[in-house]
């Protein structure tokens, strides 16, 4: 129970020391970008209308995966401590109330949670447990783990289909994607992708999924009806280090954060061809797109900043310094629905 003391410290700080998003920013009803800073234990909030930092939240040790709820009113961030091989109280997913900028609860999600996805109805959360080699399914109404499923070794990326039926969990060492049927809460299929798969995402129509493979420098295109890879896209002659991936809201573009290659690849989803490569900050990891599809945000882990890309020109239009260390993931919450 070594983590409990830290947990009390963190929650105490979170409840009292929050630099919450300004009322002015909230009044603009602009979507907010939430950036997890792995090494400083914080989440930075950026107003996407101004691309200014409007707040920082202390969340706890090792924040990495970060997602907003379907209604945009909450943001979830995965926390894990340095004791990777055992579950402690520091291993959790924190829920942040977007309106107040405060942590409202901590959800147990197995040991070493890294990435996760929230179901479209907002009632369930699917998390990868890297060290345990499992995926946890959490009922967000009861705060309980309702299933723990064996997936590949070193699971990492988690994505859920738009209809909520399928969850894909990538596994870095196995080079696999495990397919969870959310009605049965079971792994119903697994398939091989390229080497060291890091992240996955579905197209808005749910017909395709995209899986990045860091060592191969590729993106696997998956037919979600058959759960089979139908094409593999090579990025930067295999020298890209793809990690985060997101599809534009209209489904026409796939954006890939290329990690140690310090770039973002833009893929035409119709032809599966790379149409642009955009230099960004150092080691972009997480990537998110605004609801209107006009801007991309990358969390740059080694330059401690966020690159903002205009998707019309495929140019970086702003670089936002975070007041934290090791930006890892980014999620864009849009509570107003605008």
């Amino acid at each position, binding site marked *: 129970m070594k983590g409990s003391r830290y947990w009390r410290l963190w929650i105490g700080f979170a409840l009292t020391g929050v630099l919450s998003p300004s009322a002015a920013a909230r009044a603009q009803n602009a979507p907010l970008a939430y950036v997890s800073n792995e090494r400083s234990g914080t989440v930075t909030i950026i107003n996407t209308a101004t691309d200014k930092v409007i707040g920082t939240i202390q969340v706890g040790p090792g924040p990495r995966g970060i997602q907003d709820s379907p209604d945009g009113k909450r943001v979830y961030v995965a926390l894990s401590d340095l004791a990777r091989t055992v579950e402690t109280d520091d291993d959790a997913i924190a829920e942040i109330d977007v309106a107040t900028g405060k942590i409202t609860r901590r959800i147990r999600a197995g040991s070493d949670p890294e990435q996760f996805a929230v179901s479209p109805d907002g009632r369930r959360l699917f998390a990868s447990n890297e060290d345990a080699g499992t995926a946890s399914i959490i009922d967000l109404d009861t705060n309980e783990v309702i299933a723990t499923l064996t997936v*590949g070794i070193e699971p990492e990326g988690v994505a859920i289909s738009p209809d909520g039926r399928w969850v894909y969990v990538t596994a870095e060492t196995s080079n696999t994607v495990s397919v969870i049927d959310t009605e049965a809460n079971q792994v119903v299929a697994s398939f091989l992708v390229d080497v060291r798969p890091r992240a996955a995402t579905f197209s808005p129509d749910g017909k395709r999924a995209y899986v990045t493979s860091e060592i191969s420098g590729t993106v696997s295109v998956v037919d979600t009806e058959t759960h089979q890879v139908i094409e593999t896209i090579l990025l930067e002659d295999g020298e890209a280090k793809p990690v985060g991936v997101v599809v534009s809201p209209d489904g026409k573009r796939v954006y890939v954060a290329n990690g140690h290659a310090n770039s973002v690849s833009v893929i035409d989803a119709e032809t599966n061809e790379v149409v642009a490569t955009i230099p960004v900050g150092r080691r972009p990891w997480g990537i998110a797109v605004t609801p209107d599809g006009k801007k991309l945000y990358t969390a740059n882990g080694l330059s401690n900043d966020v690159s903002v890309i205009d998707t019309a020109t495929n140019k970086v239009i702003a670089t936002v310094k975070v007041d934290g260390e090791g930006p890892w993931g980014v999620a864009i919450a849009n509570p107003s629905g605008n």
Partner: protein
Amino acid sequence: MVDGVGGQPAPASRAWTRREVLGAVVAAGGLAALRGPAALLATTRQDLRVGLVVPAGAAGEAIERGATLGAEEAARTAELLGRTFELVAVRAADRAEVEDAVRRLVAEQSVCAIIGGADEASFAALSEAAERHGVLFLNAACADPVKRDEHCRRHTLHVAASAAMYVDALAQWLVGEAGRRRWCFVSAATPSATAVYERARRALEAQGGEAAGRIEVDAGTDDFGAVLRDVERTGADLAFVDLAGEARQRFLEDYSAAAPGFEVAGLAPEAPGAFGAGASGPRVGIWPTLWHHTLSRFGATQLNDRFHTRFGLEMDALGWAGWFAAKVAWEAVNRASATGGTELVRFLESGRAAFDGHKGRPLSFRPWDHQLRQPLYLVKPAPGPGDEWEVVAELPRAARGQAAASHELLDHLGDGEAESRCRLAPLS
């Protein structure tokens, strides 16, 4: 844990003690002995299998630990895909036992590959037998340049680094970054040591350094005081040491006691636990290695954790090589959609075969000499009174501002096609 690895659920949360591991290995060796030379240990599940053929001893056990973990991880993945994967381990003491083991592993177990090469004799015997039986052989330990040149064969591939890779890594860092430009070579008067000396001298001169001399050490030398004085007289700023076992140990003991004004570096056999906490021998010098338990980037932390959880030991170079060889066997079978030796070799020689060894770059085999391209690490004693070693450099270095392709960068370690004495024509 030796037999039927794939058939057992991985004890993910169990920490194995060294005594348990060694006890089981000894038991397996005893079983083999009772059933005659190279007796095969029982397997229970059918599908894909990889063989392990090693002599009794610490090096074989270290490779086996890694191969066991690699096979267990492959087995878990195989289960997700509706298949099975097993490691079949055999003790073989000499050439005849190796031949018998390989024959039976191929005929009775249909293994897709054999892992081994714990020492020079075992490597040579396995390379011959693998070629004869048309099965892929993954060498996990032998770096000897003479033996490797003698056994430049289609079915032999090297996960272990070559001596040329080690000396290139040392030269690039010691001359280029540590400023040690004048080396005196201290080695035995053997063909292998001479080959290493000649290759190391070329590596040194390619970096702009110069050889200050070479001292050949007679077999059985146990007082290195005179050798140390001879090195000092050459004006060298570094003694490059390439001595086997006990001679190396004695040299380093005398070096530590004398504390001369030159640095020491060289080749150290990838002995089990060589650079782990509590390793025996003087804590001096700078040495190249395949792997170290303190590596953390690119998932190395997770791999080191999994190994430690499984065996209660730090992952050393031989453990990494065994683990990686099992991973290569499993992934090659899947990606090539084949189990035959020639088909697997064709795939591994191709540009399509790249693997993740938690070293941050895609690792692939050179088609001409079947050497795995991979980064190496230089270790030295960690500061302070403890017994730890630390990684001081990863080689090769990427030139600032240059984005070389991974295989081009990794080819900065070891013999290029023109330089190599092993030049296999690609399979058509």
